[in-house]
């Protein structure tokens, strides 16, 4: 089992005819993902990478039974694209787009609140259940099917972590990039809650970074109600305050969001925190009782 997506997931790519959309549709198809349709308003009826293109998500849902969406729509139109997917009955929305205005995400968050839908991202690499399906932009070949869950706010840092896990012989059940923006669709806690009930996930690796308080909240949640072993890593111990470190959400502001505070909260909750990225694989092995 995996969480949120598996080999039955039917994926629609919003923005399929754009540069990124085309490239990653090809990559996803090569990985074995069932990409059943694409959406580019005005280009309905065309075929892209062998996949039918529709004017709207609603058409892709009605004609192809799409239930997962992967969004590559440019920032000015991305919030609309997320809401379109949710309104059309998509159950899992993966928004790759980086650079969506924060106040657009405020509206999106409110729009999704009472709907039965999960948003992953924005500004994220997506979600992969190795060997089953990949909905996103991560390199598929570094992953191995297995029993570790991975939740991360980052992109290439997640690849690094997954590479180390695979390297030490720990495969992954599902890896989720939740995104580097200040407002994201789903949190560490949302996905921990799913991993909790997944019999094929034995432990979780949580990759956080400076900014906000999501890691502190996750620490409290884990202490109170998550019994599988968790290993964490926090990036940005050396980040100066007041500077946006690449990700829009990675900023220490008003004395809040420091890596040291997050590490302290995680350790206080009994979670092992890898002292450096170089030692992550080893730390996870130790936590999982493999060394």
């Amino acid at each position: 089992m995996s969480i949120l997506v598996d080999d039955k997931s039917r994926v629609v790519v919003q923005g399929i005819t754009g540069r990124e959309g085309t490239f990653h549709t090809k990559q996803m198809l090569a990985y074995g993902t069932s990409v059943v349709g694409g959406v580019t308003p005005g280009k309905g009826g065309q075929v892209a990478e062998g996949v039918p293109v529709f004017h709207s998500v609603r058409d892709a849902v009605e004609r192809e039974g799409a239930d997962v969406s992967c969004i590559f729509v440019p920032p000015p139109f991305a919030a609309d694209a997320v809401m379109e997917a949710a309104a059309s009955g998509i159950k899992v929305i993966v928004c790759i787009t980086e650079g969506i205005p924060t106040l657009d995400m405020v509206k999106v968050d409110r729009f999704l609140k009472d709907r039965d839908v999960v948003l992953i991202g924005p500004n994220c690499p997506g979600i992969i259940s190795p060997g089953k399906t990949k909905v996103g932009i991560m390199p598929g070949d570094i992953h191995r099917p297995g029993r570790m869950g991975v939740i991360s706010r980052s992109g290439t840092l997640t690849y690094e972590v997954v590479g180390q896990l695979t390297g030490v012989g720990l495969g992954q059940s599902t890896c989720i990039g939740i995104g580097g923006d200040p407002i994201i669709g789903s949190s560490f806690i949302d996905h921990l809650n799913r991993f909790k009930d997944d019999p094929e996930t034995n432990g979780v690796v949580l990759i956080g970074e400076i900014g906000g308080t999501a890691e502190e909240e996750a620490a409290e949640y884990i202490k109170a109600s998550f019994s599988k072993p968790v290993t964490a890593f926090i990036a940005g111990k050396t980040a100066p305050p007041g500077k946006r470190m690449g990700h829009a959400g990675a900023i220490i502001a008003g004395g809040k969001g420091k890596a040291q505070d997050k590490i302290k909260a995680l350790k206080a909750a009994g979670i092992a925190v890898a002292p450096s990225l170089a030692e992550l694989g080893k730390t996870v092995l130790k936590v999982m009782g493999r060394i």
Partner: protein
Amino acid sequence: MKIHEYQAKEIFGKWGIPVPNGRVATDPDEAGKVCEMINGPPWVVKAQVHAGGRGKGGGVKVVMEKDAVVSTAKSLLGSSLVTPQTGPEGVKVNQVLIEEGVDIDREFYLGMVVDRAAAMPAMIFSPAGGMSIEEVAAQTPELIWTECVDPATGWMPYQARNLAYRLDPLPSTETLRELINVMANLYKVFMSLDCSLVEINPLIITKAGKVLALDAKLNIDDNALFRQKEIVKLEDTSGTDPLELTAAAYNLNYIRLDGNIGAMVNGAGLAMATMDLIKGAGAEPANFLDVGGGATEEMITKGFEIILGDDRVRAILVNIFGGILRCDVLARGVVAAAQKSRIQVPLIVRLEGTNVDEGRKILEGSGLKFLVAKDLSEAAGLVAAQVSGESGS
């Protein structure tokens, strides 16, 4: 993006948030002329820089004579203002704002931010005005009052009443009406201009019972600049690090730090973790540089140019996780860029990911003096050796 206080106050004025009469001046003579147009004495002369804590750094002066306005403007303009929020080198003052002095009866804090956890804009009001809101939050959190705004309704009058009627003693009805008005207008500014932060500290009640924004801080969400064209025109980059400006022009995320080990990484999270790794090895990172998750040869060349533009750099660590972009392509990019940039300092390269063996072969066969690290701990070790080598020489 940040704008100056005088620019924020012009915006406030247009949106119905009262501010003291004032004008900006760029030279002392102009300052003298400006002060003839403004009621006084007293006058307040305020340095316009993108840094808080100006009062503590001597950037805000109250003066009683016109000559003193001119001499204060003269001493501030062109000088470097050091505040608790700048580095020791300070920031250059190019403009001063000259305002009429006002009689303060009470001081408050009023601000808006996006509450990340609630995913809503939040209005923050505090009767403890005039001091750092972080300090208030730490010492007297009961004096921070917050109202989150539901995007479905927008700011509602009851929310303003919730904040304003907590004041003790309660201001006059007329003053309360003004205060509630200022809150509603601040919300409009925040939403209409895609702000990430608006702060009025202090917001005051004058002895005459008028509500006035004595200070103004307004930051815009960088992601929304594409639809805030009028605001973009207000940008003043004179206080920004020139290397950071160059990087921004090439869409690279670069932040200059205090150390001497340059770092080039693809992806923001990995770049932060690499900085930490350098520090953990006993060295200090000279920069944060994220060339993007899908870095190209051109981005890498530009990255090298920017790192080498910092003459403190004694060694460079390149940490690339090749994903969709294969390591062999990246290695060729690094070799081409290294040749083009004529790098004189040791270059430690760590490549991982798709086609890594081929990538390493290209580096080793290039004839350039790369120190190739096979994993992160080896990379850290090589950085450490570099630093200790230097201290030993």
